[in-house]
């Protein structure tokens, strides 16, 4: 190849962006509905965020400030890779601060800091269909959504309760959007589900391999599925973050030695760093075995 290929702003050609924007607009018009779109091959593998990358590429403008997180952290390898991709192909400025970003692409987490009007949160979605593991056929699940036939999902949750005494789903916990569609929130921990409800930011979901886009417009009602006598429960941690002392954050468990030593730290690195910069601190300075034991 003698001619080096020249790529458009944010990689995708304008025709493709237009096609994706149309799908996004439809998704916003029908909250929680999965819109099929002609997903393109991207220069990163399927399953590594191609859906989110296509959505971000289609909505990004030159003035946008982009933040990319994976597992809540800005510095995980795939987040670094995707951020670099947009630095290279779009030349937009990037940030690690949640409040500075206009577009945040995420995998598996919603930032701890509240999102605000005008921000867009783009989720990378592996399996967009919340009913997929109850019914493997797309032809069936589309009909189930059309007819609002969600009985199997409730039976599944009921069986969890019958067997375990509570709903045994901890991430990708299904939600009902605006009283109509059951939606997969992507594999975020259920801890993050309440943040989706009435969120001021626009939330877009891109599934590249499965060729689906769906959306939550700002201030959309999002309810985690539950029963009156078994209400939805957010995951609780029985200790604060060892670094910043936060009690309201989702924590990662870090193995510190081979004798059962553990410590729990914020999964949202920006949140943790911001708190520490503001003078908060946790117990990590005085870390010992007793501190590090796994929770019972």
């Amino acid at each position, binding site marked *: 190849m003698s001619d080096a290929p020249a790529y458009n702003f944010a990689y995708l050609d304008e025709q493709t962006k237009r096609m994706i924007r149309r799908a996004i607009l439809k998704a916003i018009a029908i909250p929680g509905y999965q819109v099929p779109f002609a997903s393109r*091959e991207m220069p990163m593998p399927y399953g590594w965020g191609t859906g989110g990358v296509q959505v971000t590429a289609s909505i990004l403008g030159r003035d946008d400030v982009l933040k990319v997180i994976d597992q809540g952290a800005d*510095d995980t390898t795939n987040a670094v890779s995707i951020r670099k991709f947009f630095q290279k192909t779009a030349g937009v400025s990037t940030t690690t601060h949640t409040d500075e970003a206009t577009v945040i692409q995420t995998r*598996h987490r919603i930032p701890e800091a509240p999102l605000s009007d005008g921000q867009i949160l783009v989720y990378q979605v592996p399996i967009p269909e919340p009913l997929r593991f109850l019914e493997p056929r797309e032809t069936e699940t589309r009909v189930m959504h059309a007819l609002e036939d969600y009985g199997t999902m409730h039976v599944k949750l009921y069986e969890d309760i019958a067997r375990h005494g509570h709903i045994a789903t901890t991430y990708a916990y299904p939600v009902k959007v605006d009283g109509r569609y059951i939606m997969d929130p992507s594999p975020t921990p259920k801890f993050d589900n309440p943040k989706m409800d009435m969120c001021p930011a626009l939330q877009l979901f891109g599934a590249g391999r499965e060729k689906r886009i769906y959306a939550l417009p700002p201030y959309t009602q999002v309810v985690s599925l539950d029963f009156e006598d078994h209400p939805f429960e957010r995951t609780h941690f029985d200790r604060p973050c060892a670094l910043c002392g936060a009690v309201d954050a989702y924590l990662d468990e870090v193995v510190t030695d081979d004798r059962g030593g553990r410590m729990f*730290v914020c999964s949202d690195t920006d949140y943790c760093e911001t708190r520490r910069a503001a003078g908060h601190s946790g117990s990590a300075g005085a870390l010992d075995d007793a501190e590090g034991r796994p929770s019972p």
Partner: protein
Amino acid sequence: MYVAVKGGEAAIEAAHQLLAATRRGDVGVPELSSAQIREQLALAVDRVMCEGSLYDRDLAAIAIKQARGDLIEAIFLVRAFRTTLPRFGYAVPIETGAMDIRRRISATFKDLPGGQILGPTFDYTHRLIDPSLAEGAQPAPAPRLEGAEPEPAPHVASLLGEAGLIEPNRSADADQPVGDLTRDPLSFPADRDLRLQALARGDEGLLLTLGYSTQRGYGRTHPFAGEIRMGEVEVEFIPEELGFPVPLGAITVTECEMVNQFKGSDRAPPQFTRGYGLVFGQSERKAMSMALVDRSLRAKELGEEVTAPAQDEEFVLAHADNVQATGFVEHLKLPHYVDFQAELALLRQLQAEWQNARKDAPRSLESSREAAE
């Protein structure tokens, strides 16, 4: 002591440098040129072009070199390039009946117009490793048949068609443009044009396995290799401003037409039915497998009962693309700390509840609990 991990960027950079050096291997050994790959690993190039859906021998050769010989990785490289190319139109359907034939065999007729031509094939070779290749032995010059004009070689199926023994191919419908699953999301049920496109791009290994499974009774189709042909065909394009076809060049393709015995159903009379395979370059394995699976996927259309994986359209089409498959399988390498943490907490809770239940009722039979999803 633990500090929040930093340095992902530097690690990625270093890993890529390491990959480049590892790809090169021992620098004391001369570097492989992409022209050598194109000429001497031509079947690898063919596979990458076919499953990469882009006919460009040079590009496929570079991709194979860059991918260190990992063909699925090379296919991925080609696909990611292809998707950025502008579409300026669709070619006129190629005429495989007018192929400049290098190989053409039929397993259904001993002799037929155009003859049987073995061509360059592994068939009937003895699979004995040839140590002289390690020394770089030169082969004898290629044999040539002097003075023989190639005679027309009509498709075998058309010979049967005249007698009404085989189902006719549906003729093209100008009002119904051919589908393209790279431009429109695939939806089910998919028409045969989209199925064939998915199969042509599909993983050779998967199609081989599925085709094989039909031979072993999982959705039997009673196939005969009516014809396999390989050679060059001209590609023509009609520019709007000219209004007549102009040649774009020639491509090598392998075509397989399976002829399948069919006893008839309430939907179709007893007659031979067809399965079709067409791939870039030379790959009979892929073309034949594709033809077997194509025929199997026609089960519903022909009123057959769908019982086997090879007949199940959603199953086959949703899983045939190896770039998608390898991406999703390998994404398990990505961090899943957050979800794993959630499962860890749940498991600890379930274990504690289980222990308590045992304490409360030591002789309870209720001891089997499934781990959470």
